[in-house]
């Protein structure tokens, strides 16, 4: 990766030297070198992958970029070394609730050996693809927000509502030191956010996708106890036996949910998913495990996802009574990774009908940009949007990427330059429509 960086630098120098020697004005050439695409590439090259994301450098970069457009910036650390960058474009009527555009700074790790190009090199191939970890998730929208504002400014557009952009850390590890702390801060309250957009997902066809809810993740750990015994003895109620009974019941439930999806009756994200993520039992030995002792403890871990339409209390009852009954010497632990209900006790979802005036404005903006919108969806996993929704603020998940394979968290994540540029245009329409929408809105 160091090598490719050096060669890029050399190429840049070479290009400069050539242009200088050609005695054309260097400033013009430098302008040509600085494009939305190159700024996207620069942002993609920051190594923001977990477990050691570099937050300082990208925040400086974004700050400089925002300032160059004439926006106000503020960096806040709710947790040391985990900055939140807030960029503001003041509106003409600051008393109206503002519009927030959120994106996260961090990315998931990459295995370079499985990539065609180094994951933090942001190689732009002749066929227009920009390869990088974060190209889809979600560094594209981070730059698109700013580029859209740059264009609107150059067209002398003046927003009525104030526009905010937030860049938050740690989304990929739960957002607890990022968005969760940010939305609960007095700084956030002062923003008086009326509506927000956060990341969405790529679309494999020509329709843009919009997400009105996340599924809430639970970590479920089940533990069985039983009499230990020699490996040759068959007896009832061993820990393994007890654990397997539970796992089989959970597997049946998983199948029933999956069958609904397979039958086309529901989307993947509309059912309760439950997937085993670990199994642990046995007495360790120098060569692996003791093969002639039945252990007295066994445990398994599951990743459970609840759509906002699911009843969490009913789920808890099912777990306690059917999946992990105490009568079989079982115990369990549920770790709820995030909120299930908003501050009013309502399911965490944003309305996608006339009851939500932002929905109409958003839909019209997409149409004005010449785009088509798919049926609103629930996101398969989670984003920071849930923390904002918890405050009762409507949020859509949206990343303008059509005709793009879904590669977030995958090897060879890329985005096509034309798709990226089209996204800027789409955001211009969205920002101008949302910020001009004056109807009194109560949250």
């Amino acid at each position, binding site marked *: 990766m160091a090598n490719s960086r050096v060669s890029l630098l050399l190429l840049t120098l070479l290009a400069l030297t050539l242009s200088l020697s050609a005695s054309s004005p260097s400033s013009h050439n430098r302008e040509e070198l600085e494009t939305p695409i190159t700024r996207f590439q620069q942002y993609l090259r920051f190594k923001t992958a977990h477990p050691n994301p570099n937050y300082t450098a990208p925040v400086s970069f974004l700050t400089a970029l925002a300032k160059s457009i004439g926006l106000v910036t503020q960096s806040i650390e709710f947790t040391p070394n985990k900055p939140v960058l807030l960029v503001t474009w003041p509106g003409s009527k600051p008393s109206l609730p503002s519009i927030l555009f959120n994106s996260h700074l961090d990315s998931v790790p990459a295995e370079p050996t499985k990539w065609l190009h180094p994951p933090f090199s942001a190689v732009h191939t002749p066929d227009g693809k920009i390869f990088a970890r974060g190209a889809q998730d979600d560094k594209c929208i981070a730059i698109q927000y700013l580029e859209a504002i740059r264009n609107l400014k150059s067209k002398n557009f003046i927003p009525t509502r104030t526009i905010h952009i937030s860049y938050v850390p740690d989304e990929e590890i739960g957002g607890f030191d990022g968005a969760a702390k940010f939305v609960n801060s007095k700084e956030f309250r002062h923003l008086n956010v009326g509506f927000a957009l956060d990341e969405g997902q790529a679309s494999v066809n020509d329709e843009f996708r919009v997400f009105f809810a996340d*599924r809430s*993740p639970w*970590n479920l750990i089940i533990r069985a106890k039983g009499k230990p*015994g*020699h*490996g*040759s*003895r*068959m*007896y009832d109620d*061993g820990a*393994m*036996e007890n*654990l*397997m009974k539970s*796992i*089989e019941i959970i*597997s049946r439930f*998983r199948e029933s*949910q*999956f069958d609904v*999806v397979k039958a086309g009756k529901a989307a*993947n994200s509309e*059912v309760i*998913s439950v*997937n*085993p*993520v*670990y*199994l*642990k*039992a*046995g*007495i360790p030995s120098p*060569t*692996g*495990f*003791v*093969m*002639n*002792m*039945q*252990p007295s403890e*066994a445990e*398994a*871990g599951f*990743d459970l*996802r609840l759509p906002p339409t699911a009843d969490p209390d009913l789920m808890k009852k099912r777990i306690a009574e059917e999946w992990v009954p105490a009568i079989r010497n079982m115990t369990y632990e549920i*770790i709820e990774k995030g909120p299930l209900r908003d501050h009013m006790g309502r399911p965490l979802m944003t309305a996608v009908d006339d009851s939500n005036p932002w929905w109409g404005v958003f839909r019209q903006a997409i149409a004005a940009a010449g785009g088509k919108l798919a049926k609103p969806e629930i996101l*398969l*996993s*989670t984003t920071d949007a849930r923390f904002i929704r918890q405050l009762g603020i409507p949020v859509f998940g949206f990343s303008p990427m059509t005709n793009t394979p879904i590669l977030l*968290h995958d090897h060879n994540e890329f985005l096509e330059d034309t798709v990226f540029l089209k996204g800027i245009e789409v955001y211009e329409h969205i920002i101008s429509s949302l910020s001009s929408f004056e109807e009194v809105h109560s949250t």
Partner: protein
Amino acid sequence: MDYPLLTSFSSTNRSLFLFLFLFVLLNTCLLLPNPGVAVAEDESSAVISRFQQYLQIDTAQPSPRYQEAADFLISQAKSIGLESQIIEFAVGKPLVLLKWAGSDPTLPSILLYSHTDVVPVEQHKWAYPAFSAQLDSHGNIYARGAQDMKCVGMQYLEAVRRLKSSGFQPVRSIYLCFAPDEEINGHDGAEKFADSDIFKTINVGIVLDEGLASPTEKYRAFYAERSPWWLAIKATGSPGHGSRLYDNSAMENLLKSIESVRRFRASQFDLVKSGLKEEGEVISVNMVFLKAGTPSPTGFVMNVQPSEAEAGFDIRVPPTADPEALERRIAEEWAPVSRNMTYEFKSKATVYDKFGRPLITKTNSNPWWVLLEEAVRKANGKLGKPEIFPAATDSRHFRFRGLPAIGFSPMANTPVLLHDHNEFLNKAEYLKGVEIYESIIKAYASYAEHASNEGTKDEL
């Protein structure tokens, strides 16, 4: 033996204690003046105290005090007047071999076999220190090894001591072998011994080895044992985010196999539960480990479905089962290639002897079995029907070489406590066992029919 069993406490045992207590009380009150009884009591208390001395030597794995045990056994042999030698097939692991020469050295000998090591203890779960050999008010002697199998080793010696002092002269030579490491597979003990030149020269015709306690009044005798197959199955599949539902994940593939294994296990267990088969007659399969997941500093990564998942099973195969059919079942149902599964045997004991015959000691048409039955009866004992030992013992090393071996530990009316907490044997049962062995050794050592030619030996 390599086997911990149930903790069920037999009520027969309690009434027996009561009976014995009253019996002893009567004896003490009415018959104490009789000098003959006093002598008998002195003698039995000496027998018990020698048993306790042996039990007090801590020979628990993984650091058994073998040398101390060997010194004690050699001193016993000297006091009885037996020839003795110590053989070390592995450094620090002495095997004690004692001999009482018979009058006809051309006849194959009798091997009275026992192991000197015991399994470890969790002392906090015991009522008495596990190497104190505490005698309680019911006459129970508590110690690790009280059932498995220091009782048998000392009973052989006591029986020989009494036969010798009674003037009995064996026709066949009698060997007593005290071997190390049975509890850790017998590789440096019985296995090397059975392979040795010394073993060839002592020309063994029949082996007696450990059996199991019996909660009823009938002693138990074992003609075979189940072979351990230690199986690990492994599934691979594409990894994925924890939120995604997809088919053919490693976890799903493994869990399907485990379900299949569990159905088989239930079918075998049902045969035992319904009384149609004994425990040793079915194929047992028990899960011993599960391993899957991406480790994290706090446990496991909770949002990634792993690309590998493994499970381990302890399978026990009786010699009456069809091992080829079982292996086919493993390959086709438990770890099928079609589900992206592989399997591996961590260990796989044969169910055949070196001549390709099932690892079984015959019961009918076997004079040694018949002699054992008669001898037990003569000593007023009862014998249950022949059984397959559910786990592994050192007998397999002898049966593998085509020798008859009978698993027998004379403990009736006794809960099966080997490898369990608070292992004990009642003093009266122990003394009764000495009489049983006296009767057996007498019968075996006097059996003069020449059975050393190959054809006849095969019949044994």
